[in-house]
């Protein structure tokens, strides 16, 4: 027993030493903080990229608002790929980006989804007011892009005040997708590209592009990045024909 206690002291000392030692990330590693809706398409693009390039890509997917907060707090992201302009603007205003690297890359479309086995007739946003629709999943409508877009759309349609009490705010667009898949909510708002990857939900309404909010996905290099050359290289790759084909394949609108 005594030996065990003594050994644990030396083990603890070793762990503390590891904690305080600086381990420099290798020069060819870049961290990309990207909106959750880009999860599948960026992973596919990364496979193609890493087959040829020397750099390793690590992705940090999540709600663009949460990712922006992380960067504000000093998270070591090299590239920020957001699902809306306000999150990018916040970082630019705080002087956390290289503004000349900022570019609008993609657009998307908002859709209303229900569980695949749902029997509810939801043919237009007004049907969300029906009493059979008890809960509507939305990514946090005050900060997460898809939630902000959805709230704006519902407000413009004059429906927000009536559906607000049914809203279940969740972390991001993929959490929205998951809650609709689970059947614990009757409907949810996601991007068309997210609905496309799930067989457990069905689209009941596509928000017309001219009536819905303008969705723009900008990307930029973070000012504090220590791998600017590698980041620039990947940013260029994101605008290459190969990458553009991948985005189109998943249903994104590529901006030129």
């Amino acid at each position, binding site marked *: 027993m005594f030996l065990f206690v003594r050994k644990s002291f030396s083990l603890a000392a070793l762990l503390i030493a590891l904690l305080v030692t600086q381990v420099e990330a290798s020069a060819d590693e870049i961290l990309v903080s990207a909106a959750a809706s880009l999860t599948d398409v960026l992973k596919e693009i990364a496979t193609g990229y890493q087959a040829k390039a020397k750099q390793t890509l690590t992705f940090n997917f999540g*709600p663009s*608002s*949460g990712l922006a*907060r992380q960067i*504000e707090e000093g998270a070591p992201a090299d590239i920020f790929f957001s699902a809306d302009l306000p999150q990018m603007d916040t970082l630019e205003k705080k002087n956390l980006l290289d503004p000349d690297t900022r570019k609008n890359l993609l657009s998307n479309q908002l859709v209303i989804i229900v569980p695949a086995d749902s029997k509810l007739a939801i043919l237009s946003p007004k049907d969300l007011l029906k009493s059979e629709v*008890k*809960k509507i999943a939305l990514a*946090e409508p*005050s*900060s997460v892009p898809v939630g902000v877009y959805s709230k704006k759309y519902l407000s413009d349609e004059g429906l927000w005040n009536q559906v607000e009490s049914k*809203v*279940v*705010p*969740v972390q991001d667009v993929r959490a929205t997708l998951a809650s609709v898949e*689970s*059947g*614990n*909510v009757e409907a949810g708002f996601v991007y068309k590209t997210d609905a496309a990857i799930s067989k457990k939900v069905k689209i009941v309404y596509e928000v017309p592009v001219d009536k819905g909010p303008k969705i723009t996905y900008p990307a930029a290099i973070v000012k504090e990045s220590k791998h600017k050359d590698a980041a620039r290289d990947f940013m260029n790759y994101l605008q290459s024909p190969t990458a553009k084909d991948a985005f189109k394949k998943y249903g994104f609108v590529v901006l030129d």
Partner: protein
Amino acid sequence: MILSFDTWQITLFSLAVGLASTVLILPFGITLAWLFARKEWPLKSVVETIVLLPLVMPPVSTGLILLKIFGRRSPLGQWLYNRGFEIVFNWKGVLIAMAVMSFPLLVRSVRTSFGEVNPRLEQIAATLGASPLKIFFVVTVPLAYKGIVAGALLAFSRALGEFGATILLAGNIPGRTQTLSLAIYSFVQLGKDPEAYVLLGITVVLAFLFVWTSEWLLRTEKKV
């Protein structure tokens, strides 16, 4: 005004549901603790282990299990839903998450206290003609009451601090299922640090009060 309406609502909601969950688990926890402390029975060690699981497993794991049990796609969830009972994304979900996560703490504390009650006293009462139920309420419980109160306080503070299971089962819906812990998380995510700090202060004060009282009770418990 430091304490805005929202802060009050979040604090009172957390305290109310936390209190309700503790009251809910008290009879079950005390009974089970007594069965653990005084009786031997088949599968006792299995039940002991299961009861302790929420204490040791990651709270989100317990939350996921609860979500699968009570979600609409499960038999139980479907049955409850048809009768108008919604657990998921509801204050009832908060209640259940808190109850399950704090249950093992209550059982452990009460079991230890029952264990410290001299069984001779219970036997003496029996020889004087007291029924088992009477012995329990007149001899055992009064001698162990400080441990029971300490266990309840510990369970209550654990319930207040619940996050992982709560966010999965009940969601983080402001005004309906948002507790102190969930609200702090939300405010940090939104970059609203001042609001988060206010709630942080409240949770620190509450936790300090509960643990200090609980420890004091256990220290001053008489061993007969």
